[in-house]
């Protein structure tokens, strides 16, 4: 038996197909991944993401610590805003990607679950010289309610400040009420919020959402949705051997403020000719991670691939030599199939948006 979130019984009751995910018993789907995917693109779905790791960074040195630790600059996030960043090793490789919430008295980090132990070890190791406390918050659960109707359906279930937050928050902003943190963030390319809250509250809110007809969605749909949205998955599209510059995350690296963040020197020295691109397979078949991409400038590799339920074709993220554009071929079971090279995201708000 793996770790279980406070919602484990609810998943089983909803027909969740439970699988092992980085030592957590998590639902991969509740009957049909495709139906869940479409529910989020067209209406509203809820994901239990309580397996993710919540860590609070507090103390007088918190700001300086995070400006040293992260490739993005926490000063770019005003109070009440969230920031996406990579956490790098000295070689510029991505230890993890995370979201930082800038609160009045501290910073809240949400990191991945599969990387929890090495992240916590790294966070602890880097505290030297900073007056800072790093505190994991394992008692907190997290729900992602996503889809064009997600906020209105959710707001109808809430009162007061929580309702107001869900209704009126700007993108990447968050608000807190009691021990709830409500953020207009997500991993699907749709509107919606992520709520960090106590486990018992998560169970109650889940029940209300079910009653309101919000579809429970598993890790399977989470992956197809995030890939359509062109969002990286840690361990697939980046890891410690890949820098954010190679992983399509240059926009998250804040160079122009003179900060000496970990990995900066390695990034500045990097003359690496690779880039992350999107691929679209217009023939029948499914692109998968690790398939070889054959281009006029040399080989690349698919880092994430799937069938896109929204577009009805297979899509992928791939690392290829710099400057490659137009078309390429992907080797699938000893056959080479032509693919179009595009710029992700593939889908936003239910519509195809990729660019050639």
């Amino acid at each position: 038996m793996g770790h279980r979130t406070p919602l484990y019984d609810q998943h089983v009751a909803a027909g969740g197909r439970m699988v092992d995910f980085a030592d957590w018993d998590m639902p991969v789907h509740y009957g049909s991944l495709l139906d869940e995917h479409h529910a989020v693109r067209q209406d509203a779905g809820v994901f239990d993401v309580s397996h993710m790791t919540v860590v609070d960074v507090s103390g007088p040195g918190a700001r300086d610590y995070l400006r040293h630790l992260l490739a993005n600059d926490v000063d770019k996030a005003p109070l009440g805003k969230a920031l996406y960043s990579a956490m790098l090793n000295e070689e510029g490789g991505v230890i993890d990607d995370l979201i930082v919430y800038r609160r009045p008295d501290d910073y809240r980090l949400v990191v991945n679950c599969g990387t929890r132990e090495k992240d916590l070890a790294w966070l602890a190791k880097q505290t030297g010289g900073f007056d800072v406390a790093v505190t994991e918050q394992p008692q907190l659960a997290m729900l992602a309610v996503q889809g064009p109707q997600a906020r209105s359906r959710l707001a109808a279930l809430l009162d007061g400040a929580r309702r107001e937050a869900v209704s009126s928050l700007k993108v990447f902003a968050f608000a807190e009420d009691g021990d709830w943190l409500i953020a207009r963030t997500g991993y699907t390319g749709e509107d919606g919020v992520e709520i960090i809250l106590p486990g018992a509250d998560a169970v109650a809110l889940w029940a209300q959402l079910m009653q309101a007809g919000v579809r429970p969605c598993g890790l399977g749909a989470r992956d197809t949705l995030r890939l359509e949205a062109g969002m990286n998955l840690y361990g697939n599209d980046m890891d410690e051997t890949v820098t954010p510059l190679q992983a399509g995350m240059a926009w998250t690296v804040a160079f122009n403020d003179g900060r000496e963040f970990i990995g900066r020197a390695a990034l500045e020295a990097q003359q690496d000719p690779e880039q992350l691109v999107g691929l679209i397979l217009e023939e029948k078949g499914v692109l998968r991670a690790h398939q070889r991409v054959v281009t006029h400038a040399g080989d690349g590799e698919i880092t994430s691939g799937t069938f896109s339920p929204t577009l009805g074709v297979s899509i992928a993220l791939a690392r290829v030599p710099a400057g490659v554009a137009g078309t390429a071929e992907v080797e699938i079971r000893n056959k080479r199939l032509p693919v179009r090279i595009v710029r992700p995201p593939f889908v936003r708000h239910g519509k195809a948006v990729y660019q050639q």
Partner: protein
Amino acid sequence: MSDIRAELRYASTHEWVRLEDDGTAYVGISDHAQDAMGDLVYVELPEVGQEMKATDEAGVVESVKAASDIYAPVSGEVVAVNEALEDTPELVNQDPYGDGWLFRIRVADTDELEQLLSADDYREQLDSED
């Protein structure tokens, strides 16, 4: 609970076989297999006319999440493939023992059919996998 049909034979790799009066047999994947795969989005079938030996790779079924090889449960020549699956692979999910059949094979040696699992044997295999 998976649907296991008493009149069919099964391979340990989850294909089913149904022998017809004319000496050909339909091949598909079991209800258990389609359910475990989830929503199928692509099916790659053998060529009509292809000669296969039992346990040869005969095709691939791909769900959103994964690809699984299909093996020939018996030896013989492929005499037909289910072309409807090209555009509607979900037929395998909806009707694995009917409209979701994969291909039809002229059975070279009916003894091979006897060596496949009976419905009871197959159910036992699934129980032991749980």
